């Protein structure tokens, strides 16, 4: 995962996240849209019909003075925390199933 | 080059003068044998 900021203002960010595909980008976009202070979030897997650019580009627009990079960081931590919880739940569910069998 | 005669099944060495013909039985059909080297193939 290589990050490259393309455009950055106080409330807008365009950033290239090299090496990722829909698998992670869609989860990230979903999380951003559920983050307070994020007005818009989207990603493009094939920007400019891919005139050489093939890495996904994430666009974030924020409001209420939230820095878009902070929003991104918050979303990433949010995903991680959620998945940590999910991991434990799934592990417990499999253990329960194994104990019953 | 090593070949095998398709009639008498003997190994045949061909040189550039003898033409394509088995020196033991005169048969003109010779089969090329698979080289004995280990062949590396990549799977993709």
């Amino acid at each position, binding site marked *: 995962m290589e990050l490259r900021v393309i455009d950055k203002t106080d409330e807008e960010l365009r950033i290239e996240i090299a090496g990722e595909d829909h*698998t992670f980008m869609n989860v990230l976009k*979903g999380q951003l849209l559920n983050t307070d202070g994020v007005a818009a979030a989207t990603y493009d897997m094939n920007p400019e019909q891919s005139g050489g650019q093939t890495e996904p580009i994430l666009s974030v627009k924020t409001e209420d003075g939230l820095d878009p990079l902070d929003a991104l960081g918050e979303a990433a931590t949010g995903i991680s925390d959620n998945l940590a919880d999910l991991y434990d739940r799934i592990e417990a569910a499999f253990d329960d199933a194994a104990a019953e069998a | 080059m090593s070949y095998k005669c398709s009639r008498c099944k003997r190994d045949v060495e061909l040189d550039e003068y003898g033409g394509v013909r088995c020196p033991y039985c005169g048969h003109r059909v010779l089969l090329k044998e698979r080289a004995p080297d280990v062949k590396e193939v990549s799977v993709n």
Partner: protein
Amino acid sequence: MADDFDVEVVTRDDRSARLLVRGLTPAVANGLRRTMLSEVPTFSIDTVRFVENSSVMFDEMVGLRLGLVPLTTPLDDYEVGESATLALDVEGPATAYSGDIETSDDLVQPADENVPIIELKEGQRLEFEADAVLDTGKEHAKHQGGVAVGYRHLQRVTVVGDADEFDEEEPNILRGVIETEDGELVHTEEFDADLTNRHPGKELEIEDVPSAFVFHIESDGSLSVDELTLRAVQSLRDRADELAEKVAV
């Protein structure tokens, strides 16, 4: 995704499981499915050195078949890109099976021993040494650990009353797992996927349960279903962590 998760194993056997997860967004459900298919690495034969192949198939064809043999994968012991060595020597008349393959590491073994590689006639022989490489399904489909991984919404079936007596009874086909009124989880296969078998002469209401997904996960044997699922969650989480770390700098 903020809601609490609730996970339940609906059915499970050796190589497959149905897993109900509540509190998931469609994005995460799909991310998980895609990760299980393309990001969890497994071993697969990648290079073959043929010492002898007098079978009726070309080396490349035998190689392709070998690549598709699932190999058990001890993920704790290997990193992506590392390899293990395998070998096979079978002389006809016999069929060379995946079970005839010898391995350098006991933990890397053909997941099934009855995958036919090729039938050898009298005088034919297949001997090779091969390298199996640990890589992901994104790199090549032969490295996919999950087969037929997918999900459906959980559906709630409620009896709302009796069907009109003179209505013609038509089949009411439904696939997937349903939740009954008393919270029981039933796969529709148990009543032949036809709701009129389970509730004859009743009027039913069927609705998708919000944010509840039933995953069907099947492994090719390289990893257990548990490990495949958990590794997928972990792999997705690792990427979120990496992003958080890089953004923080």
